[in-house]
């Protein structure tokens, strides 16, 4: 994964090469990226320290007041905590599941193509729509509770999404269902690079299956780890559609996330300054965590290569 290795890019041409393309040719794509990504972010950065309501012509600088509000208000404080918790559990669980699926389906099982498609399918479905299906399953009068009653586990019956103690875990279950297929595809692509000869050679040298997995497969999967971890982390932090479909952020604030609060504070409550401050927090989290992952995992990739 050449996320951080600029050297690879430069190899494409040398100075004075007639193949050099003037950088102005990249201008349209660059202009779009700057207009949609970078310019608004700079402005948003400023809004985060103001009390702008979205309508009045001027916004007043109020310093760090928005951030104090975030930590003081139960909705936003809960959103920050939930986002961290969901992301942490989700990233670990989904990557373990994805890696297990990939290893299992990399062998020449007859039905492997069908199974791969089947596991990948949840990812392509509209998160909002599949979220509603899950809400039906976990509803108090829904499929799961009815099933539990039939098999005699009445004491397990509960309002999965309406109980603050179960709501986050139920959401994580849905997320794992949705994204392990994607993680699987990342790891499968990585496993293509693991040659059978290497495995056989190690086996002849007397390495156990676990040793071979640990010493051959894992290092060669380094690029896949990078992509999968960074992608699932960003997905976890930005969690929005699924929350809206499954719980709407409730009960009370038990399943609010930073993204749902950005939307609610800005576009429902008209508090654009506070919304920007929340968005800044979300951005900061993602940038810090993703860059750390890229640097640390990039170093591991280099060590494995």
């Amino acid at each position, binding site marked *: 994964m050449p996320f951080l290795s600029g050297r690879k890019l430069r190899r494409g041409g040398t100075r004075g090469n007639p193949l050099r393309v003037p950088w102005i040719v990249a201008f349209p794509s660059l202009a779009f*990226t700057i207009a949609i990504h970078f310019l608004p972010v700079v402005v948003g950065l400023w809004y985060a320290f103001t009390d702008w309501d*979205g309508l009045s012509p001027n916004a007043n600088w109020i310093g760090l007041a928005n951030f104090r509000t975030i930590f003081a208000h139960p909705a936003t404080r809960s959103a920050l905590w939930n986002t961290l918790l969901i992301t942490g559990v989700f990233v670990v669980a989904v990557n373990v599941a994805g890696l297990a699926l990939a290893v299992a389906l990399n062998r020449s099982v007859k039905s492997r193509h069908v199974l791969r498609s089947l596991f990948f399918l949840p990812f392509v479905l509209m998160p909002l729509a599949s979220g509603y299906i899950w809400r039906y399953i976990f509803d108090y009068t829904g499929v799961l509770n009815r099933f539990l009653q039939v098999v005699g586990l009445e004491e397990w019956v509960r309002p999965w999404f309406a109980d603050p103690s179960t709501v986050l875990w139920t959401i994580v279950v849905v997320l794992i269902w949705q994204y392990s297929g994607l993680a699987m595809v990342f790891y499968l692509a990585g496993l293509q690079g693991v040659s059978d000869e290497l495995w056989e050679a190690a086996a002849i040298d007397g390495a156990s299956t676990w040793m071979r997995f640990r010493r051959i497969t894992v290092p060669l999967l380094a*690029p896949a780890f990078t992509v999968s971890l960074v992608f699932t982390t960003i997905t976890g*932090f930005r969690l929005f559609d699924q929350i809206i479909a499954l719980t709407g952020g409730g009960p009370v604030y038990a399943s609010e996330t930073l993204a749902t609060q950005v939307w609610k504070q800005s576009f429902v409550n008209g508090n654009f300054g506070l919304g920007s401050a929340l*968005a800044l927090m979300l951005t900061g989290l993602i940038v810090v965590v993703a860059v750390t992952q890229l640097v640390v995992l990039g170093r591991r990739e280099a060590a494995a290569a």
Partner: protein
Amino acid sequence: MGVVTLGSLGAWTLARSGSRLSTGLYMLFVIGIIMPLELGIIPLYAAMRHLGLVGTAHGMILLNVGHYMPLSVFFYASFVRALPKEYEEAARVDGASLFRTFVRVVFPMLRPVHGSVAVVIGLITWNEFFLPLIFLAGSDTQTLPLGVYAFVGEFSAQWTLIFAAVTISIVPVLAFFLFAQRQLIHGFAGGIRG
């Protein structure tokens, strides 16, 4: 469409210009992928409202092209780097202009990537809920996720009706998936081989 054309053009330039600048610009695009849009969304909303683009299909398209540009540049860049340079050399030696070289030689050679980029980004856009919710909610221009959302709001707990809406939104994707699953899976896996 816009993403395919401009994205491939941008990536080609970056991969071939071979200067220090291109490395920096490439990093800019990578940052664009990582950075979430939430922070920029409010100024964007204000700007688009000012330009009268909120609630219009045009505005939404512009927004999406910009939003997924870094991702497409990233996809293309990894493929352009793997292309043999000899074809371009030959074309240039034969007197083809820069523009002709791109249209006649480079663009066709990137065919597998066009498929992946179009399929992957098309799918993400189809399912996208956050952006349309903000920029199209309450207007006459609706996307499917918005429709489903409004529908559920109106008929809460009437599960048979909700499932009808959910089915409508899922069936096209299912059909599409059966048809294009190879390209889709390759597309998502594509980021790794770079």
